[in-house]
């Protein structure tokens, strides 16, 4: 099944003022991939995520989702094509319950997958959207069914992430680690084919990190995802990723299997530091 990759970046560059945050970035994610994106602080990892998800527009290069060019698309449109993400600084809907957080995301899938820019298509889409509100207001049986389905789906995701007991708790009242997991549950709600995780283990202690590693793998398998993880915890990255891309100052300085990357001189210099080699060099 050598079809087009789910998500692909082709020579993507972006600049902020004079600062080249990302230069000639290439990436390709297939179903079942579990890739890592690492690099020093400010290397452009989160920026890469933002370009891939449409938050920023690349100054050069293309982003494709299943061969559809998505440059110029809004984030929600790219999301509908199957790319979901979490944020480096948790961005939950803080006053909504855990369940509602996930339901918001589930909902998006029932909207029209319309991307034609033609006027007719736009009008049709708008018409559909307004009509959809009517269904909600009139509480049509179809709508009720759909809502029930959403609830079930969201509850299922909560239980997958081990959050069922927090169902009706407001997101802001969850402990940090659970907030991180809720964010992932929410991203899964959009039924993605690619999942981008921005430092999912930040702020977790060693034990929680270990649990998270297991979880990420399981998600990839159960939901048949391609996963891209940004993480500074080398144990996690090296432990689960099959391929790792290393960024420094916006440039890709290395790519390959963990063992390969770990021993790459440039990576050690720019990122890992010699002491890493000393303390972790031996341990696989």
């Amino acid at each position: 099944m050598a079809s087009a990759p789910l998500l692909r970046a082709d020579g993507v560059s972006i600049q902020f003022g004079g600062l080249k945050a990302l230069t000639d970035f290439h990436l390709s994610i297939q179903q079942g991939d579990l890739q890592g994106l690492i690099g020093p602080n400010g290397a452009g990892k989160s920026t890469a995520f933002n370009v891939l998800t449409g938050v920023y527009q690349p100054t050069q290069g293309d982003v494709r989702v299943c061969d559809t060019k998505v440059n110029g698309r809004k984030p929600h449109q790219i999301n509908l094509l199957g790319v979901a993400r979490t944020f480096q600084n948790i961005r939950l809907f803080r006053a909504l319950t855990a369940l509602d957080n996930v339901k918001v995301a589930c909902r998006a899938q029932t909207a029209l997958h319309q991307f034609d820019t033609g006027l007719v298509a736009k009008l049709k889409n708008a018409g559909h959207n307004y009509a959809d509100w009517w269904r909600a207001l009139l509480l049509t049986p179809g709508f009720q069914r759909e809502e029930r389905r959403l609830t079930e789906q969201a509850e299922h995701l909560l239980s997958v992430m081990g959050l069922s007991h927090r169902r009706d708790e407001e997101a802001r009242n969850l402990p940090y680690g659970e907030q991180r997991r809720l964010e992932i549950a929410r991203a899964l709600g959009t039924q993605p084919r690619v999942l981008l995780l921005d430092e999912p283990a930040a702020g977790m202690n060693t034990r929680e990190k270990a649990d998270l590693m297991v979880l990420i793998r399981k998600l990839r398998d159960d939901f048949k995802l391609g996963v891209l993880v940004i993480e500074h915890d080398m144990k996690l990255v090296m432990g689960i990723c099959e391929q790792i891309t290393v960024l420094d100052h916006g440039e890709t300085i290395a790519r390959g299997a963990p063992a390969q990357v770990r021993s790459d001189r440039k990576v050690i210099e720019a990122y890992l530091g010699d002491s890493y080699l000393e303390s972790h060099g031996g341990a696989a």
Partner: protein
Amino acid sequence: MSEAQVKTLGERQAFAPLLAVDGIKVHYGAIQALKGVSLTVGKGEMVALIGANGAGKTSTLRAVSGMLKASAGRIQFSGQDTTSLKAHQLVPRGMAHAPEGRGIFPNLSVLENLELGAYLRRDTAEIRADMEKNFALFPVLKERRGQMAGTLSGGEQQMLAIARALLSRPQLLLLDEPSLGLAPQVTETIFRTLRDVNKAGVSVLLVEQNAHLALNSAHYGYVLETGEVVMAGPGKALLESAEVRRAYLGE
């Protein structure tokens, strides 16, 4: 509500007292975050505070630095009762707090952020020297001097927050998860810096998820669980205790 039994391991190295927190309680509305936390930090001592998410580490720091009002208990800092003082009154007494979430001013430049760290100081020349020292510590910051702090990468922001706290020349530095989101190399740099700073006489109260790193560097450590101190002891001793290893190091 009875004070929890604190399990104490090992002997504490002797330091002159600097900060003494005695049975403080903190509430957020109906939620009680701290149920009577007591701890001390000596002059020149580095103390680590570890605990699971939501244990109340951040709340403890906030209460100490005057960001939050403790509903009960007493806090003493360099011999004075500071329980009811506000945050800005504690800074001139020598406390600096790099808060959780970094608390940088996103729309001020990096340099302006740093200058604010030295807000209460008048010794321009000294400030400049300290600034240079900081820049040597964190070269990125020098590069990005003019950039809006809000557009820095996460790690850069963390460095900025620490540098800024140092610029007030504190006696006691409160740090909330300084390694959060930092590249391994930078984390090491920061901890090295912290040890240097500490050697130079600044006391440090450190909150960390990375228990290994924290306890390794700290003279003494406390373990917090659901708003209560459950264990205390010298850093190395805690690191070796089975409970800590199981609960926080995942072994």
